[in-house]
C-alpha cells in the first residue's frame, strides 16, 4: 500500500463484455410491438371492426366528455379519498387491536376483519343503503334525562353515506391486514430495545414500531389497493340487470350490449386516473423509505 509512492498505474483499457441477450430481447419486443400496432391499424382501416358501428365508438365519443362522467369522476375521487381515510384510521386501530395482548380486543378485531373481508363490498353497500329495513332510527343520549338526539336512518344515511360506509368499513378490514403485516415486518429486536429503555407498549408502538412499519405499509398499500379497485370496477357491473354477462365475444352478437359501451365510457377516465397512480415511484415512504434503495439483480 505505502510502497510505489508516486507511481500511478495506467488506467485499464479493456474490451467491455458484450450483452447479446439485451439485443435479442429488444428485437423480439420490437417485433411484437410492430405486429400489435399493425393489427390494430389494419382493423381501424377496415372500419367494420374496431371503429365500426358495432362497438359503439360514436356513443363513447359522445358521452366521454359529458358532464355526467365528470361528476362521476368527482364522486369517485371523493369516495376513494374519504373511504381511504376511514380505512386507514380504522384499519390501524384494528391492526393494533389484533396484535394486542388483550384477548377480547384481539378477538373482536379478528371477527371484524373476517366478516368484512369475507362478504362482497357491494352487498355491504346495499346493506347500509337499506339499513332502514333493520334500524328505523338512531337515538343517542343520556339515560333518565331529556338529552337525546334522534335521527331517522334514511335521513342519516343518504346514498353517498351508504357508499362511504360500505367502502370505508370494508377498506378498514383490508387495511388492518396490511398494517398488521407492516407491524410484524419490524424486527423484534426493535421492540426489545425500546422496552429495555423503559418504554411502555403504547410508546413502543407509536414511536418505534409504526414509523418503521410505514415503509412496508405504504408499499403494500400501493401494490394491492389500487389494483383491487380496478378489479371492483370491472367486477361491479359485469352482469347487466337481466343477469346477462356484459362482456361478450364480439362474434357472438351483432353488437355489444349497451352496458359494455357504458363500461368503456367509464373505463377510459378511470384508466386515466389509475395509470399515473400506479406509475409514480417511491414517493411518500417517509424517512425510513430512504433507508434502502433496491439495486437491480445482476
Amino acid at each position, binding site marked *: 500500500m505505502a510502497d510505489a509512492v508516486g507511481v500511478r498505474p495506467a488506467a485499464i483499457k479493456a474490451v467491455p463484455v458484450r450483452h447479446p441477450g439485451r439485443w435479442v430481447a429488444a428485437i423480439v419486443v420490437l417485433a411484437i410491438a410492430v405486429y400489435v400496432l399493425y393489427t390494430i391499424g389494419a382493423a381501424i382501416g377496415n372500419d367494420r371492426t374496431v371503429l365500426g358501428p358495432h362497438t359503439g365508438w360514436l356513443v363513447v365519443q359522445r358521452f366521454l366528455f359529458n358532464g355526467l362522467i365528470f361528476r362521476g369522476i368527482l364522486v369517485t375521487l371523493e369516495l376513494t379519498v374519504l373511504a381511504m381515510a376511514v380505512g386507514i384510521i380504522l384499519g390501524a386501530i384494528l391492526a393494533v387491536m389484533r396484535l394486542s395482548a388483550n384477548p377480547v380486543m384481539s378477538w373482536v378485531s379478528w371477527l371484524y376483519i373476517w366478516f368484512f373481508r369475507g362478504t362482497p363490498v357491494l352487498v355491504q353497500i346495499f346493506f347500509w343503503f337499506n339499513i332502514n329495513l333493520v334500524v328505523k332510527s338512531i337515538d343517542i343520549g343520556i339515560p333518565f334525562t331529556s338529552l337525546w338526539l334522534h335521527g331517522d336512518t334514511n335521513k342519516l344515511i343518504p346514498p353517498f353515506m351508504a357508499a362511504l360506509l360500505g367502502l370505508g368499513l370494508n377498506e378498514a378490514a383490508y387495511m388492518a391486514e396490511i398494517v398488521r403485516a407492516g407491524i410484524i415486518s419490524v424486527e423484534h429486536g426493535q421492540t426489545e430495545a425500546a422496552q429495555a429503555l*423503559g*418504554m411502555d407498549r403504547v410508546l413502543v408502538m407509536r414511536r418505534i414500531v409504526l414509523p418503521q412499519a410505514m415503509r412496508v405499509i405504504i408499499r403494500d398499500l400501493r401494490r394491492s389497493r389500487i389494483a383491487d379497485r380496478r378489479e371492483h370496477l370491472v367486477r361491479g357491473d359485469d352482469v347487466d340487470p337481466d343477469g346477462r354477462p356484459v362482456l361478450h365475444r364480439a362474434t357472438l352478437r351483432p353488437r355489444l350490449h349497451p352496458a359494455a359501451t357504458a363500461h368503456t365510457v367509464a373505463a377510459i377516465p378511470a384508466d386515466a386516473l389509475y395509470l399515473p397512480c400506479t406509475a409514480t415511484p417511491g414517493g411518500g415512504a417517509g424517512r425510513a423509505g430512504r433507508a434502502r434503495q433496491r439495486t437491480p439483480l445482476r
Partner: protein
Amino acid sequence: MVKAEAVQKNFGRLEVLRGIDLEVKPRDVMCMIGPSGSGKSTFLRCINHLEKIDAGRLSVDGELVGYRQRGDRIYELRDAEVCKKRAEIGMVFQHFNLFPHLTALENLVEAPIRVKKESRAVASERARRLLDRVGLAEKVDAYPRQLSGGQQQRVAIARALAMQPKLMLFDEPTSALDPELVGEVLDVMRALAEDGPFSRRCSRAPTLPSPASGGGKSGASGP
C-alpha cells in the same frame, strides 16, 4: 445490586436456566462465558424482565424483578411498574438494535424525553456529551445505516447510558462485529468500567453464560 437465588427458566420443556445463584455488588464488573445456547442471554434478559423466570428469586437493588412481595404473597407488577424498573437498567444488544429511522442523537434522547419526561435541551446536552465520550461527536446527525458496526454499537452503549442507569447489561456486545472493530467497543466499555460515568454505582455484566453449563469455551468478551 443483582442477586439471583436458584433462578430457573424453561422454554417449554427445555430447561435453560437450572438454578442460578449469583451476586453482583455495586461497581462490580462481572462477565459470564459459555458456549452459545447455554443461557447467557436468557439470564441477562431475565434481569430486566424481558423474560419471566419460572422459579427462584431474582432481585435488583433489593427489589424482586417483575414482582412485589407483601408478606407471604407475591404480586405480579403492572406494566407501568415493569417499565419503570427497566428504565433504571441499561442494556446493549448483540445486534445493536438502534432505531434505524432516528439519527444517533434522536436514538439517545428518545427514551429520556418520552420515558423520564426530561426536557429536550437537557436530554440533548447529555446525549452530545455521551456521543463525544464514545468518540462519535461528529456523528450526532448520522443515521445508523451510515455508521460502521463498531460505531453503531458505541451509539447503542451511549443510548443505554443516556437513561443514567444504575446497572448495565451487555449481551455479547462484540460478537456481531468484525474483529478489527471489536477493539473500539471494548475500549469504550473498559473506560466505563474504570471511571463509571455516573460515579458510584455502575455494575455491569458483560455477556453472561450460564454457570449451569459449567463454563466452556469463551464465547464472550469483556474488558
